[in-house]
């Protein structure tokens, strides 16, 4: 190593070095099913600076749910994230019935 910083754990394992990318959260918000304006629609969340090559958007369950609950869908665009209550690119008319989910937008670069 010619420059930079390294961190070792108490077990002697190298945890972070000059090649490591870490992850930080740039948006963490609960998305409500009641917030979708129409039957098949999406909600948009502004996150300046994100692109598909430096960030990822996931929705995770936050409550107990039944075996027939269906999750929201995400799409990461430049500077924003869309959360859908339906499957884009598919002609079906069904919608997600999860009550709420947590949207996490994670920057890794």
């Amino acid at each position: 190593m010619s420059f930079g910083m390294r961190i070792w754990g108490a077990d002697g394992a190298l945890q972070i070095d000059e090649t490591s990318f870490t992850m930080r959260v740039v948006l963490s918000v609960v998305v409500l099913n009641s917030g979708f304006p129409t039957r098949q629609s999406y909600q948009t969340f502004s996150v300046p600076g994100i692109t598909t090559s430096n960030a990822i958007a996931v929705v995770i369950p936050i409550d107990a749910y039944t075996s027939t609950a269906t999750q929201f869908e995400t799409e990461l665009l430049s500077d924003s994230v869309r959360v859908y209550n339906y499957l884009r690119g598919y002609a079906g008319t069904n919608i997600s019935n999860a009550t709420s989910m947590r949207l996490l937008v994670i920057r890794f670069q």
Partner: protein
Amino acid sequence: MSFGLQFINAGGAVTLDSEFSRLSVIYAGAYAPTEESGLGSTTTFPAPITTQEPPLVFLRPTTVVGVAVISLVRVNGSPGNWTGFYVRTESVNTAQPNGKYFAAVFASKLAATFGLRIWDGSANLLFDNGSQAAVFTRAYQNWTFKNSVLLSDGVNYRNTYAVPTSFPDGEYILANTFGMPMVAGNVMGRQLGNRWDFTAGEMQAYTTATSNPRAFYLPALFAKLTA
């Protein structure tokens, strides 16, 4: 940033700074079969995780001859009191749920008695070298469609999607998303799973439904615990 500490890696990305907390590992350990004749596994954290957000659970199935499956993942507990997680394999034809896990949140905790600690300008703890930062390895915004097969029950279709991998040692996948079913062509939704086909050298996601769309946009996130 006008003050503090910033560590930029060889690729020009900020690895640590005094602005943002990183995804920090709270617990790491092993998971093993506990129920359902060895098909299901419940892991209890050493103590509840007290964040509002559920912890992100990353899983690394034990390498086997054949296929390991991550499905029906559920984080147990409630906001402020997350107690553990559940994961299930697919059937008796896939490996039992054995592997390593880590649970991580976007906050740090006072842990080390020596080393480096970073606070932000509002005195929030951002980093403590006893509370390890998870290391990003790769991410996919979607998977590549592989095939759709009618199952032997004659009504359910299984769609399979793949991402390239060589199953590098010590790499974990974010598992929270492999739980709740996804929107399908009927109200029941499509069941979801993640297959580690070690024999074929392929990482797959699959969905099962009687009316099963091909469109599939579930993101995949991979991380590891060491540099």
